[in-house]
């Protein structure tokens, strides 16, 4: 007996890594998710060459959407060049032949974890967000079947109560990332760990957004031109992070979401969180042609 008799004969991977039946199932669930905006659809999460919790949910959706003419951008914490983003992008290219890109304007599919790009997305672009905890009701209802019943009844009083308690205790809403938001006036979703700054970008957007959690095996969607309203009391307006007048220390750009970089002397400087927008701004300042698209925020103010 030789090793060759024990192993399967060599065969190429399926196009896009996932086998055809996996992709068919995912596509069906993605269509369902579009049909009922914000409603979580359970799916059979497959093995991908990456550990659960590192974006396997987003990866499976992206793999299902890819075609050889796709141009794919992957962002991790706003950066295209982090190890995680670079490896996912390279993997996507290898299994599909899709072109890798860093430029938001150039991409057809954008997979991201913490950020929605600052440049406005178009109707020919799809945003895929990796979600660690898809269930907005988890903090108030640990029993998942009860939580599903609450979604069915649109019973969101307890989520509102959380906001009430935060205002009573601290004078303001403390919820930072993953801010619960009502989709299409019906289902409350948790919009992945994107900051509050990015939630308004999903409201009535031209692009399609998928949100997918690999470990929890659930995906949901925000179709184009769908209302996404962060839960907020009528007399306590929703506030985004106070980044409107911070300036990026590298590109000199003002009015966008920034990362804080602590310095040795105890102070801190800021850096544009959308790294490729920063790169384009620097190139432009140096006289190169680097087109920057229209942005959702202008001078730190959101423009609908």
């Amino acid at each position, binding site marked *: 007996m030789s090793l060759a008799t024990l192993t399967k004969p060599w065969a190429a991977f399926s196009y896009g890594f996932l086998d055809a039946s996996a992709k068919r199932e995912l596509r069906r669930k993605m269509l369902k998710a579009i049909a009922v905006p914000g409603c979580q659809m359970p799916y059979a999460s497959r093995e991908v060459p990456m550990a659960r919790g590192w974006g396997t949910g987003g990866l499976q959706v992206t793999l299902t959407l890819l075609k050889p003419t796709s141009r794919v951008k992957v962002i991790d914490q706003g950066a295209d060049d982090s190890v995680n983003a670079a490896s996912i992008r390279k993997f996507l290219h290898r299994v599909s032949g899709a072109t890798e890109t860093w430029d938001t304007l150039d991409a057809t599919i954008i997979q991201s974890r913490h950020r929605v790009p600052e440049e406005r997305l178009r109707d020919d672009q799809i945003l895929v967000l990796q979600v660690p905890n898809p269930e907005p009701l988890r903090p108030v209802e640990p029993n998942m079947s009860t939580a599903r019943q609450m979604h069915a*009844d649109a019973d969101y*009083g307890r989520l509102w*109560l959380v906001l*009430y308690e935060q205002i*009573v205790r601290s004078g303001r809403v403390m919820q930072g990332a993953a801010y619960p938001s009502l989709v299409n006036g019906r289902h409350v979703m948790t919009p992945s760990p994107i900051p509050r700054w990015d939630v308004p970008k999903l409201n009535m957007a031209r692009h399609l957004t998928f949100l997918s959690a690999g470990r929890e095996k659930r995906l949901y969607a925000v179709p184009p031109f769908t209302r996404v309203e962060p839960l907020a*009391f009528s*007399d306590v307006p929703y506030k985004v992070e106070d980044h409107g007048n911070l300036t990026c220390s590298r590109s000199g750009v003002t009015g966008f979401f920034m990362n804080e970089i602590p310095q040795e002397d105890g102070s801190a400087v800021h850096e544009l969180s959308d790294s490729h927008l920063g790169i384009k701004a620097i190139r432009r300042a140096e006289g190169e042609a680097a087109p920057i698209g229209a942005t959702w925020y202008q001078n730190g103010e959101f423009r609908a």
Partner: protein
Amino acid sequence: MTATQLHAQLPPQLMTTPPLLTVSGVNRRFGDVVALHDVSARVYPGEVLGIVGESGSGKSTLLRMMNLEDTPDSGDYRLALPGVTGNLFELDRFARRMLCARHIGIVYQNPHLGLLMKNSSSGNVAERLLIAGERSFATLRSKARVALEASEFPLARMDAPPIELSGGMQQRVQLAKAIALEPALLLLDEPTTGLDVSVQALVLDTLKRLQRDRAITMVIVSHDLGVIRTMADRVMVMRRGRVVEEGLADQIFQDPQHEYTQALVHAKL
């Protein structure tokens, strides 16, 4: 004797208004235990119906039915309220929840059943308003304050979690929550059992005052005849899932007919 016959035996009624609440022919079994057998009851607007009976006689089960938390094996339940029609036991879960939130308030013997112990007291009251769709923080705040004040809760502690409060105060939070939406019907399941006598008297005072001021229709369950005597206009005596006697409070206490009621009243006196 069936409950229908009981109704026929009642003295001529002065009330010409139809009953607010009508349950009829309710049966409920848990395995071999007959928790309710052909139970019927009516409560007229503004009236307080007291339900007494020994432990296990089905009082709480009946109250849970009235709060639509449980469905009977058979039976009919009607509330004479605008926009509310048909047998309420046949409503789906969603319609039940909306009906309960809007028209029925309940206070449980065990505050753990009725309150979120780690949220603030005012938040517990506010949750009711949130379910009904209130979205202004200032309004939530002021309505919670009004409800807590009406149930004579010390406002200085309105943001303390119930878990840090005394039993009497917890019952007041439950009460505030129950009346926050000004329900047509208030259900009270042993609201003062487990409180010490002086606190019990204070809570009963609050209930009496609320009843007087707002003319809320109430159903109060207790195995304490003293409580029933203080609160109720009419009394229903239950035993082993059946109604054994029903009548005006004075009549039941002065001239009980059924031997079980006689024993009960005499044991008390």
